[in-house]
């Protein structure tokens, strides 16, 4: 089954068997989540698109991943994270001014805070907390998947996420104060 209800793992197997309908479903599922995540690391949109393609193909191509055993999302974002860190090390991403932050192509739902306020609050967080919130709110991963990506215990993720959320809200409140 490769319809919209199919699991990521089933879709991966189907793509490897040449089913392009499965590709369309899987791509639509991760298009925004993965690209938004990659974009946090890479300023240049064109470069981000290249990395996005590389990561997606690498995951489909790598036969060491057995879809029957592993979680696709955790694997995809682990590859993406490593790839982005490599890119970061190469120096493609310097600490950027807030004004130079990329603007979203579209906002998928109405948000309470202005996008700029949210980005400022996120950028003020330590890297670990920002990563955690991105993986939860942008990549929409489960605790187990986040734990797999970051290589820590699930319980640790829960407590760190609590701290990250509190810190994010505190930063947001600072930004709202005139």
């Amino acid at each position, binding site marked *: 089954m490769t319809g919209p209800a199919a699991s990521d793992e089933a879709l991966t197997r189907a*793509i*490897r*068997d*040449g089913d*392009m309908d499965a*590709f*369309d479903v899987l*791509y639509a599922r991760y*298009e*925004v989540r993965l*690209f*938004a995540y990659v*974009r*946090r690391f890479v300023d240049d949109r064109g470069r*981000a*698109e290249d990395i*996005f*393609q590389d990561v*997606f*193909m690498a995951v*489909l*191509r790598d036969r060491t991943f057995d879809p029957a055993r592993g979680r696709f999302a955790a694997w995809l974002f682990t590859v993406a994270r490593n790839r982005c860190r490599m890119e970061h090390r190469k120096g493609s991403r310097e600490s950027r001014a807030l004004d130079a932050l*990329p603007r*979203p*192509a*579209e*906002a*998928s*739902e*109405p*948000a*309470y*805070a202005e*996008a*700029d306020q*949210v*980005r400022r609050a*996120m950028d003020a967080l330590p890297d670990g907390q920002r990563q955690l*919130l*991105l993986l*939860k*709110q*942008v990549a*929409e991963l489960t*605790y187990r998947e986040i734990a797999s990506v970051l290589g820590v215990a699930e319980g640790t993720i*829960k407590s760190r*996420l*609590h701290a990250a*959320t*509190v810190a*994010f*809200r505190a930063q*947001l409140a600072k930004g709202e104060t005139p």
Partner: protein
Amino acid sequence: MNCDDALQKLTDHHHETLGPEDAVAVADHLGRCGECAQAYCRLQAQLRGIGAAYAERPSVDVRRALRAKAKAEFAPKPTRKVLAFLRRPIPAYGAALAAAIPLAAWLGARPASVEPTPEAGANHAPAPARIHDYDATVPLLDRNVS
């Protein structure tokens, strides 16, 4: 549960990391307290705001290029299609089908039964039918039959 306790636990309630008892208590409190419910909505909106602030889609060309790459790499070639067909698992009724093949071959190869020709019928008249346990010389017991 009072408002202070509920507000303390809102974040964990949102992330679904509370124990079952606490989760029920917070949900119950939110159902009764408008102020805390409002604070909870505010928290949810702020966290949704992260996703919305960063939502970004790659260009259509990326999708097209990626699809073409995947197709080139994974779409089955004609030889692979034939191999895949040959490697398909035999269905459960395969054994029955396999047994039916020699049976069909035997039925096809069996000579048709010989029909008697009219000439053959003239030379060899069929013997009259014989009735067993009947003797015409023995008078019928009942002659009243009209």
